[in-house]
């Protein structure tokens, strides 16, 4: 499913989206499939499947550790696409990974493998717009959205040029720093949401871990919230994972419902 279709569907209901991140293969391929099912059952509208990289510079400790676990358990790009193809949930799947894995596979092949395994968006946190030309073209040819990030320190001029390339949604980094749960989210988020006049939906991520923060972000004008580390922490605990994932997704989704 394409991301735009999902947002159109939500718009008709005047709902906002919950975008959930988990790291593929953490702790195993089978577990990830069940976790994705639990997320969707709980109310996640879009699922980001992290393709783990050995050196994840944009991630905090929670997702770093998940990446290490997944890599140790044998996750690799071939397995990743195989796994994605076997997931049949009625939500868009997005690949979040670092550029070297894409470069090594070849941008065209990577985009094609996404499209053929049912992945309709790619997020690459270490690929700023200046360096994204080749992948952007490959994504366009294969009907995959390349999702760009903007941050509180991105200038208006840069935002304008990024918006010119954006498709799917615009990933708004709530505050400076790496991924991970935080207590303060709202401050700079409101300011940046106001600065952006986007034709694609705006989704706020980095630091959001509960329904209160989600409600603040939605209230500030975001079309979606992105939650990652909070789900990954549940997976790391190994305790009653699927039902707790489903419950947390459900709770946060309540903040997104009109």
């Amino acid at each position: 499913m394409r991301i735009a279709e999902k947002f159109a569907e939500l718009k008709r209901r005047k709902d906002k989206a919950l975008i959930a991140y988990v790291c593929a293969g953490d702790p195993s391929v089978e577990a990830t499939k069940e976790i994705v099912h639990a997320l969707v059952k709980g109310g996640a509208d879009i699922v980001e499947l992290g393709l783990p990289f050995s050196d994840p510079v944009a991630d905090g400790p929670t997702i770093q550790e998940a990446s290490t676990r997944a890599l140790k358990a044998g996750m690799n790009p071939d397995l990743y696409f195989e796994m994605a193809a076997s997931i049949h949930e009625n939500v868009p799947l997005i690949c979040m990974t670092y550029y070297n894995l894409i470069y090594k596979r070849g941008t065209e092949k990577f985009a094609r493998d996404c499209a053929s395994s049912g992945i309709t968006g790619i997020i690459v946190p270490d690929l700023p717009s200046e360096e994204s030309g080749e992948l952007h073209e490959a994504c366009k040819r294969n009907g995959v959205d390349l999702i760009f990030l903007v941050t509180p320190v991105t200038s208006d001029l840069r935002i304008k040029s990024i918006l010119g390339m954006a498709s799917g949604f615009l990933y708004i980094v709530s505050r400076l720093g790496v991924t991970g749960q935080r207590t303060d989210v709202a401050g700079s988020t409101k300011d940046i949401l106001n600065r952006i006049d986007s034709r694609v939906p705006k989704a706020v991520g980095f630091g959001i871990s509960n329904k209160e923060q989600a409600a603040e972000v939605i209230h500030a004008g975001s079309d979606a919230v992105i939650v990652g580390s909070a789900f990954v922490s549940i997976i790391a605990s190994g305790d009653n994972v699927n039902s707790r994932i489903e419950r947390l997704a459900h709770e946060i989704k309540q903040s997104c419902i009109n």
Partner: protein
Amino acid sequence: MKDSMYGRFGGQFVPETLMPALTELEDAYKLYKDDPRFLKELGNYMKEFGGRRTPLYYAANLSKKYGIRIYLKREDLVHGGAHKLNNTLGQALLARYMGKERIIAETGAGQHGTATAMAAANMGFKAEVYMGAKDVMRQHMNVYRMELMGCEVHAVRSGSMTLKDAINEALRDWVTNVQNTHYLIGSVVGPHPYPMIVRDFQSVIGKEVREQILEKEGRLPDSIVACAGGGSNAMGIFHPFIKDENVMLYPVEAGGEELKNTDREALHSSSLCIGEEGILQGAHTLILQDRYGQILESSSVSAGLDYSGVGPELAHLADIGRITPCNVSDHEALEAFYELSRMEGIIPALESSHAVAYVMKTAETGKLGDLVVINLSGRGDKDLETVFRLRESKEGEETKTVEDKKEPDNKINDKEVCL
């Protein structure tokens, strides 16, 4: 070609949060690099604090043995014991001109961390250094040195707990504190403009060599040999000679135990020699990676060369054939460490020992020409523990071999040579 590229290498593969900081840094650098006030201040620091200019020393004993004229550029005599201070003084001064309050850095063996701590203490910055937990254990004296100078050292426990992970962690800190913090990268690696800035500050080495060799020999050298991990001392000595096509340039990488990769690690650190193109820590360059693009852990007897990537400009110069990448093994580097100590009374860093070893290994073939400059990028005091440990374990093995093979005479001779 974009400004940020060296041929098809280089670029700025970093999180969006850092893009404005890289632009700010590049703008500031362009503004101050030719500013007489900045240059005067930097020149003063280099001379009075750093101890420049360093000698270009004619190694008579070595020259005699190998039958060519060998000069050593004595960067081991820079304050702190390595070329690293050239760059930290330059960047710290730049950070001061930019109005930053805090400096962060990564370090492998601790040499760049120490040089950062020196510059920061002197110029009044708060400094924090990220160092892999493994390196903290291996190089605890350097940790103590940094702490003495008021620097906070963070042991990094992610990944392989070495230099690569220290850089990741410094990048994460920078993403979080980018508004008041300057990230003082220690080598010609990372996103543009770092490879250019570090190269320029280190080019003082090559500029001095040019003057000195003309004074002493009345001509340019036939070859220049420098060790390369990230490649800052190599770029620093090569850069002023790039256009002199008759001067051959040899970056010597760490061949480690063997020029071979396993599934998870490389047994060497030779990214220029056998790495593949990829993107690591902000730059498109040559890296050690598996078939999927996961970064392999590198390996070397010398912590300062133990890195899975290499500066993008070196990758470019190798690509166009201007430099000739080569490598020597751990064993060859250690032999050179002993030989230079004995023959010239200079104990080289294990990093620099790689450059020395390459000259010892190839001088006879004639391919280096008659006049060679080796960049002696650092002194070996920091490596004594490592070398002693290696010798003990080697002697342990030899004692075993001796017992097994019953060939005591040879082994005893070996030991005497070592002493």
